């Protein structure tokens, strides 16, 4: 039987997919499900599948069952386009993706072209994690919506926090050498310079993306610089190895990170023993203190066996439902129009808004630190016994950044 399905599944792409049944609403999930990025992609997939089930339990979206179609892009832009095309050919009108700004840029461009060339068969692209600011600035598209805070928003929030933290005096920047790392670096320089001109930037490093196996030489440089804080956008093994090398060398600084909470990050921090010295900037986290969010976390963990990395995915799916209901249609053009300017109470509390100008979602941002937990903080990460602890909440108004987007509307 199984062989048969396998055979059918292999033959299927040749025959093409028959038009989908009318009672399901398919969302193409395009992220790495094999290869290096697969652990992250699988976590995201489980999250979206959980959310779809949750929506379906409450009657779906406008009575339609939501189905997540997993599509493996191997973190490769080209492959993503193949998968997106595959999804569109199979009758998918909504795709969501998060890992890799290069993939996001390719997808946004692809969707925009597709929609102009195939009027009546539009596709919306929901971005839940790609944070390159250009996606809502010079490369912005009417068909792209972003729920994650872009890297400049996060930096705006972080620098607003640093503004009131006099202990930060000497900052070292270390980032991955590609567009995201470069935008973190330039935003940090610009915003720190404006808000805290007294802060000294004692180092500014770009290292090759995911290629460094030993960060000791970099740690030696940080140490030599006399920095008290490090700001880094590193993710994946680049953050884990960086922290590991820091702990090995006995470097005592505070780490302000974007992605220390990603898969493997908490394990690495616990291993290094950097108790409450590693900070992250997110739109929500397990111990945020918001009752609803914490209950949600509990249910999610019980069912999925992972912590909720993507509170924004919850916002995304719920807002999708809200917009569809507001438009009373699942036609992508109408949903897109309904999403513009939509205000929404986010999972971790507080109001967020989908800015019409550039389709960037603005929401409260949290700065939390990783370490030993108190009584009121029930959730640890990756079974380390340590978890995220609230340091500061930056409200929506303090996260607004300008945009250069000149959107072409249909």
């Amino acid at each position: 039987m199984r062989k048969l399905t396998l055979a059918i599944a292999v033959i299927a792409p040749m025959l093409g997919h028959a038009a989908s049944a009318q009672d399901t609403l398919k969302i193409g999930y395009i992220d790495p499900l094999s290869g290096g990025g697969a652990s992250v992609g699988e976590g995201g997939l489980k999250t979206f599948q959980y959310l779809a089930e949750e929506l379906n339990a409450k009657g779906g979206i406008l009575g339609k069952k939501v189905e997540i179609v997993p599509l493996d892009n191997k973190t490769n832009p080209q492959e993503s386009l193949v998968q997106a095309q595959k999804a569109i050919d199979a009758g998918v009108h909504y795709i969501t993706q998060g890992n890799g700004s290069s993939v996001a840029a390719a997808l946004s461009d692809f969707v925009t072209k597709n929609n102009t060339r195939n009027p009546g068969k539009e596709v919306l692209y929901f971005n839940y994690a790609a944070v390159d600011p250009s996606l809502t600035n010079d490369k912005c598209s009417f068909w792209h919506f972003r729920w994650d805070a872009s890297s400049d928003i996060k930096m705006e929030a972080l620098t607003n926090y640093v503004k009131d933290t006099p202990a930060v005096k000497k900052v070292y920047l270390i980032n991955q050498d590609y567009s995201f790392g470069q935008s973190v670096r330039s935003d940090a320089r610009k915003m720190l310079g404006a808000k805290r001109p007294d802060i000294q930037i004692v180092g500014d490093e770009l290292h090759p993306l995911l290629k460094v196996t030993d960060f000791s030489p970099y740690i030696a440089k940080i140490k030599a610089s006399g920095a008290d804080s490090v700001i880094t956008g590193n993710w994946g093994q680049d953050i884990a190895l960086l922290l590991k090398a820091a702990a090995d060398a006995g470097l005592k600084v505070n780490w302000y990170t974007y992605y220390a909470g990603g898969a493997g990050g908490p394990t690495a921090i616990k291993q290094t023993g950097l108790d409450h010295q590693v900070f992250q900037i997110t739109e929500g986290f397990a111990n945020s203190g918001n009752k609803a969010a914490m209950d949600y976390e509990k249910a999610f963990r019980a069912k999925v066996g992972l912590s909720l990395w993507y509170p924004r995915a919850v916002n995304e799916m719920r807002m999708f439902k809200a917009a569809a209901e507001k438009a009373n249609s699942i036609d992508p053009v109408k949903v897109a129009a309904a999403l513009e300017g939509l205000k929404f109470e986010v999972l971790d509390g507080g109001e967020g808004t989908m800015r019409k100008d550039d389709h960037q979602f603005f929401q409260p941002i949290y700065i939390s630190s990783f370490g030993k937990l108190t009584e009121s903080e029930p959730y640890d990460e990756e079974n380390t016994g340590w978890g995220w602890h609230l340091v500061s909440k930056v409200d929506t108004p303090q996260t607004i950044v300008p945009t250069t987007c000149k959107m072409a509307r249909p």
Partner: protein
Amino acid sequence: MLELIVISTLNGVLFGMLLFLLSSGLTVIFSMMGVLNFAHASFYMLGAFFGFQLTKWIGFWPALVLAPLLVGAIGMAVERYGLRNTHKHGHVAELLLTFGLAFAIEEIVSMIWGKSPLDYRVPALLDFPAFTVFSTNYPAYKIFMLVVSVVIFVALLLVLKRTRVGLIVQAALTHPHMVGHLGHNVGRVFMVVFGVGSALAGLAGVIAGPALVTQSDMAASLGPILFVVIVFGGLGSLPGAFVASLVIALVQTFAVALNGSLASAFGPLDPSTGPSVLSDIWNVTIAQVAPIVPYLLLVIILIVRPMGLMGTRES
């Protein structure tokens, strides 16, 4: 500055010894069998994962011995049931077999252990700073790695110089065609050599696992560098592999430590020229190009001296 030099040298030597541990096995296998084993880095990865698993079950020290043996056994099986049958189709076929094997091993490992980095820790016994240079701690485990690498290096040399198998291997290094005609059980020698080479890679994996990341893409990220090392050093030359390991590791470590770029040396370009290839090259720092330096060295040496640094044969 001195601080940076000392630390970078230490780090470079350490990384170099690790590279040598891997490349020695690869070199011996190549000189005996003429096979460039693409799966060598995969054996290194297997070593790390076996090391992780065995550490969990029976502790680090037994794992340090057992895991390489296991990897060696797998290597022997690969030689016996794979390469030996492929031999008649020529070296390209053998190379391609190991190429396919590398693919398969990576996937099998990620199937069993998942794709995220494992929590493979430094054993408690060695989890302390060994000494402090310029207020930077140098962890004891790294010293341990260094010692193991050096011990293996010395042992390898002794085995090669003093034992019969060693003599055969030595002969193979210089006169690869003769050995086959000398009436030794070439098949068994090949199998043992392949096994030992794999075991060395496995050992490197066990000790490098806790210090670096133990993850299913660790083979892919290290593999190409290994080929650079043995080609750079001269295919089939052990001393060459040793020198090349150190050179490449030191060059890479120091490249990272340096901040210089053409812009910092000669002043920034006229801003009115705008972005171009020239400005890209002008502004890139040495640290940024560190990962491509080994390949640059490889291409240059192959152009200038195709037999490699200390090699005697071309292919």
